[in-house]
């Protein structure tokens, strides 16, 4: 019986982790970078951890930022600056973030990697300079 409950709980948590994929907003479909797992916990401040993997043998540059929302769905913080992450070929990498305020109870992650998009027609990128 206990095993059955444990199995049910495990399947529920796995489902929750899989469901977190709707927290990711892709700015163009990523070709080589995959989001494997998203964990979140709200103890005082909301914490989020995103596990990514690079399926290519080449290094990939990722641009990302988090958006923070309150329980009513309103944004509780200004737009964050875009951040960069270099993921080496075949590397698994982790992004982690903490909400800037206790008001934040929900989040979204924006991801973009200009060099490995499938839809190469657009040149939109959160990059200023060369």
């Amino acid at each position, binding site marked *: 019986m206990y095993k059955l409950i444990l199995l049910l709980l495990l399947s529920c948590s796995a489902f929750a982790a899989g469901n977190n994929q709707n927290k990711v907003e892709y700015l163009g479909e990523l070709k080589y970078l995959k989001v494997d797992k998203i964990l979140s916990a709200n103890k*005082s*401040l909301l914490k989020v951890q995103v596990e990514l993997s690079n399926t290519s043998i080449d290094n990939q540059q990722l*641009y990302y*930022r988090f958006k923070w929302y309150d329980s009513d769905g309103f944004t509780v*913080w200004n*737009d*964050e*600056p*875009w*951040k*960069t992450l270099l993921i080496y070929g075949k590397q698994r990498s982790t992004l982690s*973030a*903490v909400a*800037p*305020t*206790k*008001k934040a109870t929900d989040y979204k992650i924006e991801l973009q990697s200009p060099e490995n998009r499938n839809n190469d027609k657009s040149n939109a990128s*959160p*990059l*200023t*300079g*060369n």
Partner: protein
Amino acid sequence: MKLTKISTLLLSILFVAGCATTGNSPVVRGGENISYGDANAVETVTLDFGSTDLQSIAESMTRSLLQSDVIAKSKDRPLIRVDSIKNKTSEYIDTASITDSIRTQLTKSGSVRFAGNEQSAIDELNKQNQSGLYKKKKSNKIGAMEAPDYVLEGAISSIVKKSGSVKDVYYKFTLNLSGVGSNVLEWSDEKEIRKTKK
């Protein structure tokens, strides 16, 4: 004759206005191609200390400090005084701008309070209490200032290397929070940034 002059003037005004605006969008353009960009974009114009470095340092330090036991487990919002950030790099960096960003973000988080400008507060208090210009009942009293619990100070240093056309810059920003009464370093963190030009 007068009517012709007025209509010519009106036409020339309309012509100039027509040049300055573009179509039906609320934009006034000159001859040069100037546009507003995203202030949060990753800036890689040069290797020098830039907006992205400032933003990432401020954000990283703020989030780390908010998670520290000193802040997270404090029952009341601690009062912090911001000291200077030493610039140990060879380039000019407005370190006050970094502390301003950190202070703004921490204040907005609602978890801490910051001591204001001490000298301007003293000047204002002296003016209110000693000039005889203000109503005594409504004047702020001397001796009611709150003493800060912690002091925030730090440093930024860099290592620059160049070989041929390759130039590499490594920045290290360190921030420390010490208790004023105890002089104990309660929290410390650092942010590293590497930029390379090939």
